């Protein structure tokens, strides 16, 4: 019977992540015990913080919205064989662009939201296009350029806010009501969370990514370049064009992730002195979601939930936030290293014969 389980491929695929998650939680529990904290109370708080109340669910989804988009950004570039570490910077310029348009323009309701989101997409797309162009034209490695552009974005956005949009207390002006993604309806059904329509935008973006990659000739070319540049060139595809295009679209997704913060969660932008981390989390989200649009949504919910629940764990179980970060990292580490578990399990089942 036991051997049959390991032979059943479908069941196996389900079991591996289950085992990984259990291992992650066990490791987390051991660390909590070592640190003299009650793991039962700790995990109870973690669960409550993620899904324990309508408000927690709302906050989890809210936190997931920008993560989905930054995950899509990383995943999209990855499909074309590009590693976009610059999601953070593209997110920041998108955030600023959305707030700027949301604040400075006078447009009717829905249109204002759409224009603001488009502004974020264009700004992020432009920020992503720069490394794409440099890669295509001069073979400058995109990883280096995107990392550097993150810093440029961080300080340029801070300076622009200070110069043109500064309201006081290190914040920009607030966007107009018409540009806001926030919704009293969503907030009410989740008992006062900050859930906003951004989740709908994120899901639409995920569908768009899936559609581009799976259903269009453009997506086919992008993926083809990702698999094998030389073969694609031989087949008559324009590799340079595809590299620029991929980074631009990736940047646009990242820019919209910024709009989630600007038009949804905060309704303004702070003069940031350090990165938000959402762009970098996007890398982990994309890897965990196997660069697949649907997988990215799920892994974003996990990440968003863990991030949202961390303070709850601190609050209810007195586990210090540093320890929570370690535990979250371990859970993700084990879930992501499902391959190791698969190898070990296979060895065991062979020995059992």
């Amino acid at each position: 019977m036991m051997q049959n389980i390991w032979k059943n491929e479908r069941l196996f695929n389900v079991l591996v992540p289950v085992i990984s998650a259990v291992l992650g939680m066990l490791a987390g529990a051991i660390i909590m015990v070592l640190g003299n904290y009650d793991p039962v109370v700790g995990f109870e708080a973690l669960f409550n913080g993620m899904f324990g109340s309508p408000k927690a669910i709302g906050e989890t989804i809210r936190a997931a919205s920008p993560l989905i988009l930054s995950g899509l950004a990383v995943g999209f570039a990855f499909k074309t064989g590009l590693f976009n570490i610059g999601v953070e910077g593209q997110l920041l310029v998108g955030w600023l662009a959305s707030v700027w348009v949301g604040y400075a323009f006078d447009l009717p309701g829905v249109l204002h939201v759409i224009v603001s989101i488009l502004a974020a997409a264009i700004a992020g797309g432009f920020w992503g296009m720069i490394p794409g162009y440099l890669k295509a034209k001069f073979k400058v490695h995109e990883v280096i350029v995107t990392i550097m552009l993150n810093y440029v974005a961080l300080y340029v956005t801070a300076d622009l806010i200070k110069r043109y949009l500064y309201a006081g207390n290190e914040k920009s002006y607030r966007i107009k009501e018409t540009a806001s993604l926030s919704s009293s309806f969503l907030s009410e059904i989740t008992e006062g969370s900050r859930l906003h329509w951004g989740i709908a935008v994120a899901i639409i973006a995920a569908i768009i990514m899936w559609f581009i990659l799976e259903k269009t000739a453009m997506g086919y070319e992008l993926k083809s370049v990702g698999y094998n540049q030389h073969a694609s060139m031989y087949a008559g595809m324009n590799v340079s064009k595809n590299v620029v295009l991929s980074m631009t679209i990736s940047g646009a997704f990242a820019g919209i992730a910024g709009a989630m913060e600007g038009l949804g969660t905060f309704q303004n932008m702070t003069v940031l002195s350090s990165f938000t981390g959402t762009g970098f989390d996007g890398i982990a989200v994309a890897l965990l979601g196997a660069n697949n649009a649907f997988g990215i949504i799920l892994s974003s919910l996990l990440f968003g939930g863990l991030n949202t629940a961390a303070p709850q764990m601190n609050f209810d179980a007195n586990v210090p936030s540093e320890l929570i970060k370690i535990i979250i990292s371990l859970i993700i580490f084990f879930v992501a290293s499902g391959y190791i578990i698969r190898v070990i399990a296979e060895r065991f089942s062979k020995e059992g014969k």
Partner: protein
Amino acid sequence: MKKRKIGMALSLVLAAGTILGACGSNEGDKKEGTDKKAENFKVGLVTDTGGVDDKSFNQSSWEGLKKFGKEFGLEEGKGYRYLQSEKEAEYIPNLGKFADGGYNLTFAAGFLLEDAVQTAAEQNTGTNFALIDSLLMNEKFEPVFLDNVAAVTFEEHQGSFLVGAVAAKQSKTGKVGFIGGVDSPLIKKFENGFKAGVKSVNPDIEVIAQYAGDFNKPEKGSSIASTMYTKGADIIYHAAGGTGNGVFTEAKNRKKNGEDVWVIGVDRDQHEEGMPENVTLTSMVKRVDVAVYEISKMAMDGKFPGGKESVFGLKENAVGIAETKDNVSKESIELVKQYQDKILKGEIKVPKTDDEFAAFEKTLK
């Protein structure tokens, strides 16, 4: 196949959470032998992303809260506690957690939490909040007040006046400097108070003031300090947070080379920062802990100062010159005492803004 993996992982986390949650804890609340009023009083603190060991107002707030908790026999973690914010997005939920947890009063450490306090206070009208170092602001950036929010501000200009007097008394070159973090109404209070203090002692002393544009650029602090010392200033007062660390670095290097230069610290007693070269003349301390303690006590006694600004200054012992007075001369200490009395009696009204300072300077001549 991958999606299923993650789906399963998710549901497992859920399932495990439920099972573990069911085991639950039933420690119950044990509180005895405490003050009657304190028995049911719970007070919390939400830090900004700096955390309670930031050597600045997060830390100071927490110290005030600890003092309050210990004095009235509250239990840490139940009667009083803090929650550190890791991200800006956590401010509102963190404030909300205290409200949901039945806390009577929650402090928000720093003006960065201003809009978060406003939102949380509107959502949780049944509980009180106190915002440190700022008033609530509306969209046009005018002050607004909510009945369940106490806005705590400090009279930094008064403390700055006193260290200004010390600087004027002990400067040998007749030139002193001021380095501000970001040019804002708040830091202007430091600058104008300092200048007023200097000029009151000796109107002929020149004050060079400059802003670094950042609270977290020590290298910029160093370069500005270097320029000022080179121009002949021998004492620099900084109100520049982390940028000020660079001022200390520059002063230490110069002192090693035999130059007679000093730094006046800010917010806390920065004597340690000046060691081993001993460059800290004195510091302008801002006792956030005093304010946190006082507001907590008022709230416990049913006198929570909601819906208004609570100003903490010399009178409340919340600003002033630092405990460590090793480098302050006897005459300076005497002088500080005199000015302190005058300010307390209202004989001197220390200027906060540039306009007020201009008017103040005229009265000196």
